[in-house]
């Protein structure tokens, strides 16, 4: 299988001294579905931000789909971000645009054909169950609804890689499983999915590869893992 993502000894220390990531060496294969777990502040978001060049590493190299993200020219970055879409932990919707326009924006930047834009945006909003709120502005939507708009925007262009940062953070259990089903379907269509989550039952229910971060380091990488090392299969540990 092809290595779609490769991190070579990557560290990210923020200007204020906070450690985002420390000597991380890993790879992700094309078509994989990977959970990124670990306590708050472990470096999950930092890991994802490095892949879309929202932050640059202070050390090491990041290769995505054959391209070195660190050495990439600024003019190439937009194209990287169209291939690697992200569901942001804080949604990052455009406040002056409707739900429809927010999703459409991801296609507009690629100058897609207008009929295609309409069809795909509506399809995408339907998949997250929000077609009926297409005309609403983010300020008129609940947190969970905004999150689903953010999901619709990330999946609308069939990206090569989907980075889902806590995509179920604001959703009830039923909707969360609906979103999981959606992410699995997208993964089946060929998109590599990396999902950061604190949702124990989802991770345990899926039996997928789990990378656990703590203090910026990879402390565990199981092919068919659980949310916590061994514990969840047998007895329940506190935490």
């Amino acid at each position, binding site marked *: 299988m092809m290595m779609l993502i490769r991190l070579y000894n990557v560290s990210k220390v923020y200007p204020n001294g906070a450690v985002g990531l420390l000597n991380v060496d890993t790879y992700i294969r094309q078509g994989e579905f990977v959970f990124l777990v670990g306590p708050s502040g472990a470096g999950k978001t930092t890991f994802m931000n490095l892949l879309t060049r929202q932050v640059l590493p202070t050390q090491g190299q990041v290769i995505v789909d054959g391209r070195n993200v660190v050495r990439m020219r600024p*003019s190439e970055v937009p194209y990287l971000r*169209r291939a690697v879409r992200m569901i942001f932990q804080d949604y990052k919707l455009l406040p002056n645009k409707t739900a429809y326009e927010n999703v459409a*924006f*991801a296609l507009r*930047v690629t*100058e897609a054909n207008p009929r295609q834009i309409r069809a795909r945006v509506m399809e995408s909003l339907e998949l997250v169950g929000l077609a009926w709120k297409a005309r609403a502005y983010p300020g008129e939507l609940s947190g969970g609804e905004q999150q689903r708009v953010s999901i619709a925007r990330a999946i609308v262009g069939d990206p090569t890689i989907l980075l889902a940062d806590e995509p179920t953070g604001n959703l009830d259990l039923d909707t969360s499983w609906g979103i999981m089903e959606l992410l699995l379907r997208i993964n089946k269509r060929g998109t590599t999915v990396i999902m950061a989550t604190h949702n124990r039952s989802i991770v345990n229910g899926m039996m997928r590869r789990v990378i656990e971060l703590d203090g910026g380091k990879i402390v565990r990488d199981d092919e068919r893992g659980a949310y916590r090392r061994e514990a969840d299969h047998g007895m329940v540990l506190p935490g």
Partner: protein
Amino acid sequence: MRLTTVWYFLAEGWHSARRNVSLISLGTIAASLFVLGAVGLILMNLNHISQLLQARIEIRAFLEDDLSPEGVAAIRAQIQATDGVAQVTFVSKDEGLRRLRGQLGEHAGILDVVGENPLPDAFDVRVEDPDCTAQVAARISRIPGVLSVNYGRGFTEKLLATMRLVGVAGAAVAVLFVAAVVFIVGNTIRLTVISRAREIEVMKLVGATDWFIRWPFLVEGMVVGLVGAAVSGLLLFAGYKVTVRYITGLAPFIPVITAPEPVAALCITLLIMGVLMGAVAGGVFVKRYLRV
């Protein structure tokens, strides 16, 4: 670029302009463009007047005394045959004196002191092309029987010098006001960019190129420039009409431009300039504040 994308940029720029542009900045832009247009109108009129005056420039060829009527007729024929001459009129010494009296007005008494008419007979010569006045005058002066040749050299040169001065001053004022307009539009857009820094960051995260983000600001600049120019153009057109009526009532001998076409052309130029300046301000200024 796709047509939908163009429409998208136009709509975005238009909405952003409506949200962000204050009446004060729009008023300042309109005022600046108004002054710019007024300078243009003054220059146009000076040019118009100078052309009319140049067309009236005549050469006066004074004749030697004691020429026979046949001799005078021969000289007339020779002048008529000279290259560049349009029209020749005989001015007898008495006629010349009468005109001189008229020009001197209240100082005409001085001629009575002189006593005898000091003026020779003369021909007034009108030339085909005012720019060639000097050459034609030189040719006529070589004709035998012509005593001396006189043409409004000093006046022509003064007029041209004045024109040049007004032109330079006008250009300086124009540059100043163009800079002012670009600065005001640029500042308006700078504020938009700053207030939308987070939005711009999100757009970049979703894969927008710098140009995709810049275009709506460019359009916004053009909208602001266009509206400002339209307001100033209308005011200028109306204001000029009133001014012309005032001037022609007060001093009808000043040949100001009264036809609407040149004024309309100026207003359209102003419109185009407003759009261009807005585009420059939108395109260039935004680039400096786009770093995310």
